[in-house]
């Protein structure tokens, strides 16, 4: 039986600007299962990224609830949400989101130092994660000295260095060429193959298909779920 990792119930997100209320997410209810690779696709403005922000605790929903296992995360305070993001979640941002003052390995070390690991241990963990993502030869380069694909792989290494319970990715190939996009998607596939739960927003149907399930969003509502026929490695 599938184990539910994230349980979303009647999730609503509205944005208000003056008197105008924009309903971005409309009463979403669904589950994400342990070890699943869920792709979320939809046209621009459908609410994909907003959904990811709610799931990954970067934003608070207007109403509804999100449970991680038995823990309701919707009502957690800001310190608890930060601690949850640090210890249980990994996040791959659209534009790499690396810290420009830090080298590749230092970028990956940051969350592990925050988790309480000594610098030497954090460095070993970071090195292992970067080597896993095939950027082990770029440890001491600053982000500005890396290609887009390399930067995104460093970003993935930072997200997975602590083996998170859930890995969120927001259009990770949006700014990459085909070669780099393929490399990045290969990295995600490899992580999934080793049991990583992944929720990925993608604008490209082709890459969305590598997930186990595809959630089609339209105007803030779930249009349908589509099982993927992509073969796991």
């Amino acid at each position, binding site marked *: 039986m599938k184990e539910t990792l994230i349980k979303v119930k009647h999730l609503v997100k509205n944005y208000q600007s003056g008197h105008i209320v924009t309903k971005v997410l409309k009463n979403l209810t669904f589950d994400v299962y*342990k070890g699943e690779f869920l792709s979320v696709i939809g046209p621009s403005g459908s609410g994909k990224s907003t959904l990811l*922000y709610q799931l990954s605790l*970067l*934003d608070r929903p207007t109403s509804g609830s999100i449970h*991680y*296992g*038995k*823990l309701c*995360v919707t009502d*957690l*305070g800001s*310190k*608890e949400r*930060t*601690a*949850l*993001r*640090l*210890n*249980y*979640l990994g*996040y791959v*941002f659209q534009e790499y*989101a690396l*810290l*420009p*003052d*830090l080298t590749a390995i*230092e970028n990956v*070390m*940051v*969350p592990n*130092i*925050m*988790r*309480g690991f000594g*610098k030497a241990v954090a460095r070993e963990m970071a090195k292992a994660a970067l080597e896993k993502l095939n950027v082990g030869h770029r440890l001491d380069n*600053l982000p500005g000295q890396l290609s887009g694909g390399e930067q995104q792989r460093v970003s993935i290494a*930072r*997200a997975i260095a602590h083996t*998170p*319970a859930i890995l969120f990715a927001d259009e990770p190939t949006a700014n990459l060429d085909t070669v780099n996009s393929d490399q990045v998607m290969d990295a995600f596939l490899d992580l999934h193959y080793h049991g990583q739960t992944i929720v990925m927003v993608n604008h490209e149907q082709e890459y969305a298909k590598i997930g186990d399930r595809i959630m089609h969003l339209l105007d803030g509502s779930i249009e349908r779920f589509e099982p993927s026929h992509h073969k796991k490695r």
Partner: protein
Amino acid sequence: MKTFDGKALRKNGFLSLPRDITLALFLAIRAVKRASLGTSLLIISIQILTVLNLLLVNGILVGLIEGSETTYRLSYSGDIFISPLITRDRVENTEQIMNDLRHDPDVTSISRRYTASGFIASVPARSNLKDVPNETGTTIVGLNPANENSVTKLDEQIIAGRWLEPTDTNGIVLGNRLLQQYFDVPIERGILRNVELGDKVTVSFGTSTREFRVIGIVFSKIDPVARRAYILDRQLLALTDKFNLNAGEIAISLQPGADPEAWVNRMKAKHYGSGASIKTARESMGSFFSEVTGTFALIANIIGGIALLVAAVTVFIITFINAVTRRKFIGILKGIGVTERSIEIAYVLQAVFYALVGIGVGVAMILVLDPYFDKNPIDFPFSDGILSVTTSGILIRSGILLAVTFIAGYLPARRIVHGNTLDAILGR
């Protein structure tokens, strides 16, 4: 698989200070190492200038007064100054006091001076009756040159000729402010004009007049020294009241480390205070001096306060701009689970680092300038200005600057860091 544990999360939120500091140090060190050299130099320069403003301006203003006090003590009053009561013109019981002083272990040297008001005139005082007389009224001091040198070292302040010797029965040393060529004021009366070394002058006390030859000119910025004339004590007594051996004033040097105030109190306890005014050097300078000292200290504090304000605003602006331009990265740090406190500490550590470098360089400059000013004092009209800096003064002012920098670094960082995480990441 990791289980989501609410209690552990709350515990984590409160027990992470050491981790916050460790990561903050990690981030701050790298931010400083990889910061723009120009920006770093600008911030450090501002901190150095603030330190100099706090220590140098204050040190010069206070040093100006201290220099004045030191000169007064070393060239006029000694550590202790005994003068007549306001209703008398001599120090009562001088012999008894002198006898006590000679046996006092704290006293190293004594100069007993006789003083009298008189007139000094050039010879001749005027060529014809229409001329303004070339004369001045002043205090004539009769002293023992050797004793005087042991207290005030006036011999080292001679700028022309030489100091008195015990055989100079006809010699007189004039203070520089009695002579127009050494005291550039546009007056004709009350100052000696064109009187040079070797010239003859007459000294008159009432009906007694005697001729002396100018053997030396003593230079001082202290008025009681610069406006006096000096002859041997026995000559003065011969011209005035030769039977009254009570002194006009007594200047006393104490052993190094002796407490002048305690010494004065001890003397007063012996009831010498009933026949003479016994004061420390500072007390003898009068309340005006204390008021000037207080005023200068106030001015120094106002200038220092403005400097601190400027430094605080500068650090605030620089930290604010630094945080605003890195708002997105602050958002990302928060997004990946770095605590707000850790990010704030990182910014504060950067500001404090620049302050420490600035303070270090500024204090080093002060420590170099301090002995330089001692050897090359600033030539103020009424004092030789030295740099007055004390270890406690340096520590207090450096501490204040550090505290101000801490606050000025913390406030803008806090403001940016506490913003919405998602808005920061998305740049909206």
